[in-house]
């Protein structure tokens, strides 16, 4: 133990288990909590307890939610015939920020990653098939990351759903990001941008 207080040491040890936090940062946060009003620390502690107790996966789309189904799946104004497939709940937030998509989501909880031993069984793919198979879904937009793993996952999904009648499987466009410079784009990115070009 480094400090005279075992409780302080415990908090620091627990904080260092969080991603991106080293011991120095954990010490700073622990001392900040110690100096801050009791109410602030209690609110933080209670919110973490509530998070773990009340937040779960939506039984339809797999997004994080406190209600079943989640607010997006329960929203009658959204178009449930279009499903956007993403890797993680954070990706739902990113697409929602665009304000362009009014369909529903499906969160895979990862992507095919052979080197990590993540195959189709580890992803929420059977749940996706269960949503699509009964009919009523006209388009599945695969919005996995533009990485080797994301591409492999997208192609796997396309093959998985290729025999579903009346279903279109599409992939989000890939290419040069807005605000960047063509000069500094690598050949893979530029090749994808060229092959996915659109008439204007």
């Amino acid at each position, binding site marked *: 133990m480094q400090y005279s207080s075992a409780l302080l040491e415990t908090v620091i040890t627990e904080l260092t288990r969080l991603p991106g936090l080293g011991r120095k940062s954990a010490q700073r946060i622990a001392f900040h909590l110690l100096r801050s009003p009791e109410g602030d620390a209690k609110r933080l502690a209670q919110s973490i307890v509530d998070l773990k107790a009340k937040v779960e996966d939506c039984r339809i789309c797999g997004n994080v939610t406190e209600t079943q189904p989640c607010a997006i799946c329960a929203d009658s104004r959204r178009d449930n015939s279009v499903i956007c497939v993403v890797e993680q709940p954070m990706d739902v937030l990113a697409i929602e920020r665009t304000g362009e998509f009014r369909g529903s989501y499906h969160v895979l909880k990862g992507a*095919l990653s052979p*080197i990590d031993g993540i195959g189709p069984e580890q992803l929420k793919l059977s749940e996706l098939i269960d949503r699509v198979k009964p009919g009523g879904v006209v388009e599945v937009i695969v919005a996995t990351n533009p990485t080797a793993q994301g591409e492999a996952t997208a192609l796997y999904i396309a093959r998985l759903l290729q025999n579903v009648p009346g279903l279109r499987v599409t992939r989000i466009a890939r290419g040069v990001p807005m605000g960047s410079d063509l000069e500094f784009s*690598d050949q893979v990115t530029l*090749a994808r941008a060229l092959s996915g070009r659109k008439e204007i």
Partner: protein
Amino acid sequence: MAIVQSEALVLRSFRLGETSLIVSLFTREFGLLRCVAKGARGSKSRFGASLEPGVRVNAVVYRKLSRDLQLLSKTDIVEVLPALWEDPYRFAVATQVLEFLERAAYGESGDPELLDLACETLRTMSRAPIASLELIVRGFEIQACERLGYAPELTVCLECRSPLHQGGLFHPIRGGLLCGTCGGGEGSFRLSERARRVMVGLSEEPIPTLAGWAAERYPGIEVAKAVERFLAAHLERFDGLRASRVAESLGQYKG
């Protein structure tokens, strides 16, 4: 700290913090290097697609011998094989090559021939028929073992050194085949003459020619058992390649 430049094969990456990656590189001059690529996950990252698995790059690294984790400054793509990513099964089998290097290559001295072998294998895999991919990866594993100094003995009996013509008893720990007279002992298993000849061929033929082999006559189960048990006996903490298990599960969606 020295700024060094080396050709490298990207093996894998892990997320680090908000936008960075830890990247495993198999370099020509320095062997296996683990580097931090700051900001690599950002949409305007200077690394672009260069840190995807299986890409051959020229890497500029701030290298400090006392550190386990180096700092990646810059990468330029030398060779990229998008065909490897365009089929999930092909991607999983190609990943076996990368996983093998990450788990089998030790130390900080480069092995240019092993790097060339891996790059040639990936290149062959990118255009080979789906049915040939398994035998190509087995060929790579046997030839890579040879490069690393522990190739299996497949032509003569380990004990009496008599030439083998009718298969033999494969002993993974002793590192090869024994004839029927000498006997294999505990842990050995029978390897047919056909499988023995195939394994000799896999160890001797240049990788690109393996793509033209008749995959339907390839004794895959026997060869896989021999190679996997051999690797388990000679590599530390090796219980099979994870990518190999994923490839099996993707097999039904081949090509």
